C-alpha cells in the first residue's frame, strides 16, 4: 500500500507511461483508422517520446512541474486535436499542482478535475460526444468518490472507470472531431482518444503496482 509518490517516483511514473504508450501506438492507430485518420497512436508516441526527453533531462521542483512538462511537450510535439487536448489536460493539471511535492490521491483528483475542466473549455466536448472526455470524466468522478484513500488503491479504480468510459464510446455516435462526419458509421468503434486516456491512467496504476 502506497499513500503517495515522491517527486522522483512521479517522474518515474510518467517515464513508465511514456515507454508503454509508445508500445501501444499501432493499436491506437488502428482505432483511429476506423473512425478518424489513423494517426492517433503515432501522435501519442510522438508526444510521449518528447515528454520522456523532458523527464529525463529536466529539473523539477514540484509534481506540478513534472505534469506541466509532460503537457507542454505533448502539446508542442503532437499537433493535431489530440496534442491540444492532451496537452491542455496535463498543462492545466500541472498548473494546479505547482506547489505539490508529492503525488497523492488529492493531487490525482486535481489533475483529473482541473484537466477535465480545461479540456472541455478548450474543445467544447460534452460527455456523450464520443471523445476522450467520455473516459476522463468517469475517471474524475471515480477519483472524487475514492476520496483520500491511498494512491495505490485509487489509481486502479480510476483506470477501471476510464476503461468503462472508453468502452462505452462504442455505443456513441461521434459529434466532435474527425469522426463527426461519419455519423452512424462511427457506431461500434471506440474513440481512440478515450482509449489512450484509459491507457495513460492504466499505466500510471501499473507503475504504482510495481513499487
Amino acid at each position: 500500500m502506497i499513500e503517495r509518490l515522491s517527486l522522483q517516483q512521479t517522474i518515474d511514473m510518467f517515464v513508465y507511461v511514456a515507454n508503454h504508450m509508445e508500445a501501444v501506438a499501432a493499436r491506437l492507430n488502428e482505432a483511429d483508422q476506423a473512425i478518424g485518420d489513423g494517426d492517433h497512436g503515432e501522435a501519442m508516441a510522438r508526444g510521449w517520446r518528447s515528454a520522456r526527453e523532458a523527464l529525463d533531462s529536466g529539473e523539477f521542483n514540484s509534481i506540478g512541474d513534472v505534469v506541466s512538462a509532460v503537457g507542454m511537450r505533448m502539446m508542442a510535439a503532437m499537433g493535431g486535436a489530440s496534442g491540444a487536448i492532451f496537452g491542455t489536460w496535463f498543462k492545466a493539471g500541472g498548473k494546479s499542482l505547482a506547489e505539490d511535492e508529492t503525488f497523492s490521491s488529492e493531487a490525482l483528483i486535481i489533475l483529473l478535475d482541473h484537466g477535465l475542466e480545461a479540456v472541455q473549455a478548450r474543445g467544447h466536448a460534452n460527455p456523450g460526444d464520443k471523445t476522450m472526455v467520455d473516459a476522463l470524466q468517469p475517471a474524475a468522478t471515480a477519483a472524487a468518490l475514492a476520496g483520500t484513500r491511498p494512491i495505490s488503491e485509487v489509481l486502479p479504480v480510476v483506470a477501471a472507470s476510464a476503461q468503462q468510459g472508453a468502452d462505452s464510446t462504442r455505443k456513441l455516435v461521434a459529434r466532435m472531431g474527425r469522426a463527426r462526419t461519419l455519423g452512424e458509421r462511427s457506431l461500434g468503434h471506440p474513440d481512440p482518444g478515450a482509449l489512450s486516456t484509459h491507457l495513460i491512467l492504466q499505466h500510471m496504476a501499473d507503475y504504482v503496482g510495481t513499487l
Partner: protein
Amino acid sequence: MAKKFINDPQNILIETLEGLVAAYHGRMELVEGVAALAKTEIPDGKVALLIGGGSGHEPLFHGFVGENMADGAACGDFFTSPSPDVILAATKAIHRGNGVLYVYGNYAGDNMNFDIAAELAEDQNIDVKTVRIWDDVYSAPPGEIEMRRGISGDIFVVKVAGAAAATLKTLDDVYRVTTKARDNTRSIGVAAAPGTNPVTGSAFFELAEDEIEIGMGVHGEPGVSREKMIPVDALVTRLMDDILADLPFQSGDRVCLLINSLGSTTVTEMLIINRRVREILIKRDIAVHDTQIGHFAGSQEMAGFSISLMKLDAELQEYYDMPCDSLGLTKQ
C-alpha cells in the same frame, strides 16, 4: 503502395519547407527552430497574415505565402495541424506591431492549436484575430455551417485576405474583408481513388473500381454518398445544383471560379469539368469574373476534384484583382 520521390519519410516536412524556401529566392525564410515560414520583407506596421495547417496538401497552405498573399505559414506534420509553439513562433516572426490575422481551415485540431497560440500571443501583447474557412458544402448542413471543413475555397479566402492585409491599415478591417470572403465562398468535391500516406505507405481509404465518393474530405473523411462513376457532365450538374443552392448563388451574381485537382486528376479533366460548369452558370445567369484551374489543394495523389465559387461584391473584386505572387497562385 505508391512510389514516392522522397527520402526518409520522417523528413518530408522539413525537406518540403527547405525546397519551398529555395524556390522563393530570398523572399522567404524558415522561422528558426520550427516548421514555419515567414516572408523576409514585411513592412513595419503592416497587418500580418498567418496561414497554416497540416502538410501533405501542397501547395496548400505554405505555398500561398508571398507577395500580396500570406506573410507566413505555420506547418504541421503530415495531415496534422501545427502545434501552438510553431504557430506562436510564426506569429512573432511576422508581427510588425499591428496585429496578426490567422486564416486556416476549420478542423478541430487546427482550431484548438491556433486558439491556444492566439492566447499565448495575446499574453505577449500581439493582437490576433481568426477567420476559419468552412467552405465545404457537403460536410455539414447549412444550419451548422461552423461545423463545415475548409477545402479549396481556402485559396480564394487567402487571396482576398492577402490583398486586404497588404492594403488596409487595421486588423479589424482585414478581418472584416476576410470574413466576407469566407462567407461568400462555397466548395464541393468528389474523390475517385485514394492517395497514399507517404509516411506509412498505406492508402487513405478504399473505393471500388466503379465508385466515387461525393463530398469526401481532403484527408479521406467520408462525404455524403458513395455512388457509381457517371459521365462527368452529369456529375458536375449534380454538384453544381448543390453548391449553387447553398449560399445561394443567384441570377445576376458575379463569381470567381476555381477548379482544383486533388492530386492525380489531370488538367485535361479539369478543363472538361470547367466546360460543363460554365454551361450551367450561363444557364443560371451567373457571370464568372475569373477562372483558376490547377493543383491548389491536394490530398497526395488522390484522384478527384473540387469546385469553389466566391461571390463577389465591388470590395471583394478589388482585392481579388490585385496582383499576387506565390508558389500556388500568381496573378498579374
